[in-house]
């Protein structure tokens, strides 16, 4: 059983078809990048996996459970793009509330740990609305991982973060021993984070394989990896 199963999923929003029979599986403890141009269906895919929206058809499982189920949400951590913690609460309050509702063991220690690792200690009692975008993103990441999820769904996780912070977070993610599905349209993030890639365009899977394969293709065709991906998308 794969940790993430996404089979023949169709999803439309009015007349716009966001997903057109998209299918893929992610094995447990695998890290996979979901790459695609704007409007390809990446965020829609993650929202379906997170249980926020229902597909029109198809089968979706998270750890063998329906994404909408309590069991799936216990093991899943979701970081949306442009995540927004509760603006009128402080940093610490956000962590305490979400951690409590996710029944995190040793919540107090976990909150302190995350405040330290995300370098948010000096902002612990600051209202989120007063934080910079980068610090809000750090808090959002902390909220997504506070309950030690086994399956992580990340949508552009490193947006707004400076390079040292990006490295620190990637290192932490790699130590989590979890399954990752990372949506991004920036290849350098995918390369640092994951070994496999799924390229989608117009709601369909157009390529899947190892990132090393893309690098090899770029060497053979004397193109950048981004150029290779653009070519793959253009051919689909």
């Amino acid at each position: 059983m794969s940790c993430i199963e996404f089979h023949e999923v169709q999803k439309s929003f009015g007349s716009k078809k966001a997903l057109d029979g998209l299918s893929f599986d992610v094995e447990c403890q695998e890290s996979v990048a979901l790459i695609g141009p704007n409007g390809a269906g990446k965020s829609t895919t993650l929202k379906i996996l997170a249980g926020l929206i229902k597909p029109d058809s198809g089968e979706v499982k998270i750890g063998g459970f329906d994404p909408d189920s309590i069991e799936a949400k216990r093991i899943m951590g979701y970081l949306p793009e442009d995540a927004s913690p509760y603006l009128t609460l402080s940093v610490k309050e956000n962590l305490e509330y979400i951690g409590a509702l996710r029944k995190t063991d040793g919540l107090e220690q976990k909150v302190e740990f995350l405040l330290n690792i995300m370098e948010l200690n000096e902002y612990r009692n600051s209202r989120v609305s007063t934080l910079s975008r980068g610090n809000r993103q750090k808090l959002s990441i902390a909220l997504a991982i506070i309950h030690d999820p086994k399956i992580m769904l990340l949508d552009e996780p490193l947006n707004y973060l400076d390079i040292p912070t990006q490295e620190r977070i990637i290192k932490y993610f790699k130590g989590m021993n979890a399954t990752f599905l990372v949506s991004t349209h920036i290849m350098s993030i995918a390369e640092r984070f994951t070994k496999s890639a799924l390229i989608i365009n117009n709601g369909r899977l157009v390529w899947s394989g190892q990132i090393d394969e893309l690098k090899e293709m770029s060497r053979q065709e004397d193109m950048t990896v981004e150029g290779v991906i653009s070519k793959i998308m253009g051919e689909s």
Partner: protein
Amino acid sequence: MRRSLFSLILRTRVSSSFIALIIIFLLLAVFTIAISAPHARPIRAEYPVFLGILSFISLIVMVGSALIFKKSDFDFLFTSPIPASSLSLNFFLAALVINSMYAFFLVYFLPMLEYPVFIIPAAIDLWFVMAINVSLAAILRSISIRRRLLIIAIVLVWYLVPGFFSFPISPTSAFAGYPIYGTVIDAAVSLSLVSYNVLRPPRIAYYYRSLTAGTATIRRSISFAGSTPIGAIYRFNLKMVGGASTLRIGNVSKNYAGRLNMGVAVWVSMAVAVLYGVAFIFIPEAERSIIEIYYILYGVAIYPLMRGINWIQTERIWLALMSLPATTYFRHMALAKVISTLITLLPLIIVNFILFAVFRDRIFLEMSVMTLALSPSVLIFGFYLAGFVNPYQIIDIGELPPSSRYSGRNFVAGLTIAPVAAIAVLSIFIPGLYLYASIAFIAVAMILIALPNIQDSLKNSILSHNLL
């Protein structure tokens, strides 16, 4: 540390000043009941006015959908392992607590209506009606906005009917001379709807779908090609009613808020004006004052004030502030909205002139003049009030319209309706007052527009809350 779901919902939707207001209203309600209970004062003629106010508040609750969602809920709360029933129950209870404020506020009016022995059940009935409104708002959320408005309109007519006819089978008949019937209906309807909401919790996908539904293509757009910035301000405000704005979710931009073509708004206004004119022909002269009061309350006070207050949440004002001086931008925006509002009110102004010609009653002339003079002035008050009292552009700070946070400041902005409406209503009944009120209102509005300090202060208020 104890952090419950209910406290999270309440703390992120209501400021402490608003909680204080709820408590104050509750205490005032208890005080009102206590001192009124020994006195008998049944005055049937007041029922339509009270039911009108109650219906307007019900409209606000139901159209606003009572349940306030934030982007943070979708980002972190709805993806937490919380049973849907628990989420639904806690959101619903929070909505009941927040909207109870209206019930406590309205208790103040009860001594005008009821025999003393029924004042306590009437106070409870008010809370039942609020519970009905909140429950309906939650249930209607899954329906398209047009059908929702139609159902709400039917419900509001049901609320209003006991005020004009002897009709006992309505949730509001408790306040119109049918305390027993009304209380039984209130209890039955509210308990049924509340139970439905509690026992049949919607799935998270339903909340998300209801939030994103209706974001389809724009059927008719405006071209600003060739316009100057000032020209664009007028073109937008004179072609559209309401605000069209965008919210970026991921890489997709979605259009939100109401965007109604001016032509449609004028047609609606014409229909209302015709109904208004016809009402005067068929309603006995002794009962005309009720319609006059409604006209003044909604047409001259509430409608322009709401239009003035709501502008800030849907305008991309910080973009315009970067391209125009504050004095230029705010003055022209305010004037454009005044002209836009007068256009929508023009059918009513014309009908009042016609009624004056037909009935030779000075009150119709007064209402025309007040609409022309007071409505724009009231809009200006709301325009500047919003910028100082609630300067947040909801779109820009990651909140989703119509979600917002109940705060004491928001409520203060709404409370300005009271003195404005009071002066406007008194102007109907006190000869000559309408002229003085009109001149005074126009003068204050012109001062607000003219003073450069006010424009600069408004700009600083908006920028400091949104960009820092």
